């Protein structure tokens, strides 16, 4: 759109939690892609009392990169589920749990989302992640490099050189044009390169450090900078019965560490997979209550729920051993890719069935977490797309969180284990639209440190990313709520109408947001001596061919993270 073109949205009922606006009828003024105080000669949209929210912000999804594409390549049977012909505006679409890049942009925009964080970028293949992000229309994106199983990290943790670790983190985030520090099964993924795994206090083979030491060290190194986001952690033992104790022990590791600003020191992701009780699949039960209580009494943590969508999906994670375990259970196709000196990944299809007691309890846990954590500013709505289910399932979860009636109806359809091995049926809480706006926008924008950069709110100067849902605030019918959140009346991205009446009408290119941690040069030079040696001896690409070239960020947005004085 022309930089200065103007827009006014009249008569919307606005939910903008970051600015404390809880369903007020008010007008929004837009110029040059930003929210402004007034406009002179605008195009007018009459929202006619409909619900208006900032563009959705997804804190954790797997939408771009080698792992996602291996999932697509491995599953033509998923690809053919989502075939949509090209239109005058849109490219061709495919896929359900692993949609192609175009469908990913369109379908998020149709739900009113305008920012998505790619949750796991293998540094060596970072270029691939960025090449796919270029091909995701409409959305702004960022990606978090995996830095927790890297040999350099393990060596510095072992030697206790947190400053040098911080220098390595800075180099890695810059080299990958990344956003923050992603941690996935710390130590366990390196162990998986030998077909093994690690629990929180096991020693990593050869490197002789424990996952616990890795998490603590990475948190300390990260907080050396004014990083917008804390370390983003997928704890050890994902998906194992009884893992909730490991999960809480992991949370405890960063308790003492002081974040540079008012934000958590750890974001723990897809917590549903880490809230399991029992000791086997036989006595498997929900421990969501225990995890929620921890979050309620501690302020150094934030979580996203990773809620299950019943049905078939494609699981994918850098947690190689976990995917192998899953494939051992199902016997279905299994892809693995261990990445030299850094990380790994596994992919296998999975069917979450309401007939299975285990799947049913997993399904309940995600909702329990959202309902039992009292402060919505501590919890984000995710499905760990596509691991617990595809992102297009978000509206189903929203409708359940907002309607006890809907939950009871669905509970009656799934395995009865939900009544004796989860809390869900006994929870009466219903989310209101303000809370929904928090867990789908406000919380993610604040926790990622993006609200200062215009995301997740509608204050003056914010990005004009806006969702207008085809419902009034009074709507109570779960089915209608679900429908409204699946296809917006309007989605506006940077002031441009991209979705109208549930159809994509424009496909502007989004921006790639990246962080530049600013590290002292002498410290950096000392680290580089070791790093260049590792490249010479052990990497299969050269030091100079490794970093992501600027070419791969056609619309860059840089956030500087100075060293903390």
């Amino acid at each position: 759109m022309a930089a200065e073109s103007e827009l006014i949205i009249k008569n919307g009922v606005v939910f903008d939690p970051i600015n404390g606006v809880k369903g007020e009828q008010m007008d929004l003024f837009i110029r040059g892609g930003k929210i402004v105080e007034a406009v002179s000669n605008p195009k007018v949209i009459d929202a006619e009392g409909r619900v208006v929210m900032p563009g959705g912000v997804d804190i954790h999804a797997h939408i771009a990169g080698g792992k996602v594409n291996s999932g697509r390549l491995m599953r033509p049977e998923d690809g053919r589920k989502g075939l949509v012909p090209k239109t005058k505006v849109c490219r061709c679409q495919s896929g359900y749990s692993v949609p192609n890049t175009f469908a990913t942009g369109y379908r998020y925009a149709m739900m009113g989302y305008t920012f998505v964080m790619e949750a796991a970028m293998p540094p060596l293949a970072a270029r691939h992640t960025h090449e796919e992000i270029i091909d995701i229309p409409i959305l702004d994106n960022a990606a978090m490099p995996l830095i927790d199983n890297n040999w350099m990290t393990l060596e510095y943790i072992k030697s206790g050189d947190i400053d040098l670790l911080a220098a390595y983190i800075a180099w890695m985030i810059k080299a990958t044009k990344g956003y923050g520090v992603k941690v996935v099964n710390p130590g366990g993924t390196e162990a998986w390169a030998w077909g093994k795994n690690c629990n929180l206090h096991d020693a990593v083979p050869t490197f002789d450090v424990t996952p616990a030491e890795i998490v603590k060290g990475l948190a300390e190194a990260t907080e050396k900078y004014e990083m917008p986001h804390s370390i983003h952690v997928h704890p050890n033992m994902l998906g194992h019965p009884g893992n909730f104790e490991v999960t809480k022990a992991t949370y405890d590791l960063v308790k003492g560490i002081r974040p540079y600003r008012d934000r958590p020191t750890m974001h723990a992701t897809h917590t549903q997979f880490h809230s399991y009780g029992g000791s086997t699949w036989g006595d498997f039960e929900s421990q969501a209550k225990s995890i929620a209580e921890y979050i309620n009494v501690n302020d150094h943590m934030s979580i996203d729920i990773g809620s299950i969508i019943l049905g078939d999906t494609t699981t994918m994670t850098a947690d190689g051993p976990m995917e192998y375990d899953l494939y051992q259970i199902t016997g279905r196709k299994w892809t693995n890719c261990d990445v030299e000196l850094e990380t790994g990944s596994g992919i296998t299809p999975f069917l979450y069935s309401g007939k299975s007691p285990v799947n049913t309890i997993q399904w309940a846990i995600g909702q329990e977490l959202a309902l039992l954590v009292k402060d919505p500013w501590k919890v984000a709505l995710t499905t760990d797309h596509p691991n617990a289910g595809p992102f297009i399932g978000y509206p189903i979860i929203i409708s359940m969180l907002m309607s006890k009636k809907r939950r009871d109806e669905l509970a009656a359809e799934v395995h009865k284990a939900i009544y004796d091995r989860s809390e869900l049926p006994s929870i009466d809480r219903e989310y209101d639209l303000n809370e929904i706006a928090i867990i789908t926008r406000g919380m993610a924008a604040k926790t990622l440190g993006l609200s200062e950069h215009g995301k997740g709110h509608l204050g003056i100067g914010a990005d004009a990313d806006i969702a207008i849902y085809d419902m009034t605030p009074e709507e109570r019918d779960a089915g209608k709520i679900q429908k409204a959140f699946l296809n917006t009346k309007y989605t506006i991205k940077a002031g441009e109408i991209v979705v109208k009446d549930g159809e994509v009408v424009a496909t502007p290119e989004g921006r790639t947001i990246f962080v530049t941690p600013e590290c002292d040069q002498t410290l950096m030079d000392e680290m580089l001596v070791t790093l260049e040696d590792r490249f010479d001896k052990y990497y299969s690409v050269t030091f100079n061919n490794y970093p992501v070239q600027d070419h791969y960020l056609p619309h860059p947005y840089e956030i500087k993270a100075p060293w903390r004085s």
Partner: protein
Amino acid sequence: MQTITLKLKDAIVSGVAKVPVEVDALTPDQLFGKSEAEIKAVKVWWGNRQEQTGDLFEVRLAGDAASAEDVKLVFEGDLRRVKRIGEGMKVGEIEARSDVDMHCGAMMEGGKLVVKGSANCWAGREMRGGELVIEGDAEDNLCAMYRGEMTGMTGGKVTVYGNAGELTAQYMAGGEILIKGNANMLAGLNMKGGKITIEGDAKWPGADMTGGEIMVKGATAMMPSFKFVETATVDGAEYKKYLGDLAMGERKAKGTLYVR
């Protein structure tokens, strides 16, 4: 009983390039109740353009039908580049009076489909029900799954009077297949249910099978990973009964293979 005759015009296949016509829009259930003019107006794909059925086929109607069950489609002319004949058909009858191209009877759910000649690859792909008769040969991937799927044919009855190509009934889960001739490489690959009878010879039948039954009446080139169980007599004839495929591990090797 209503008979709808669709004769492919010679001009369509007389060019240098034989661009396939795809007739998945032409099944008894979809054409039932339509007038001749309406049928001629039904859009079918010919390469990257949609054309009217009447522009590609000579259309004749005879008789009336009370329901789609009473509708019989007859395809005539040179059908070697006509794909998806009877794809997804639910009821009624289709007769194809020539060799036919790929995906004939794919995802068929019911009714009867008779091919008077040979069928190209993927005949009866992911078939769920109904009856498919191929009076000539069936080429490769007969009654197989779609790429990446782990379930192929789940129901229905298939008879091939000639030979079958490679990978017959991959991932078969149900239904019955009778091959009166030979079956090329890897018939019943990944089979988990249903029954395949091969009256001629077979090469490496039942590889990676975890269920279902294959009977070969001719000569068999065996896989090296099957376990001999016993000599059994089936309708008067003696067979060696094998269990497999042990390459899948003991727990999964629940397929039965009868060979001479």
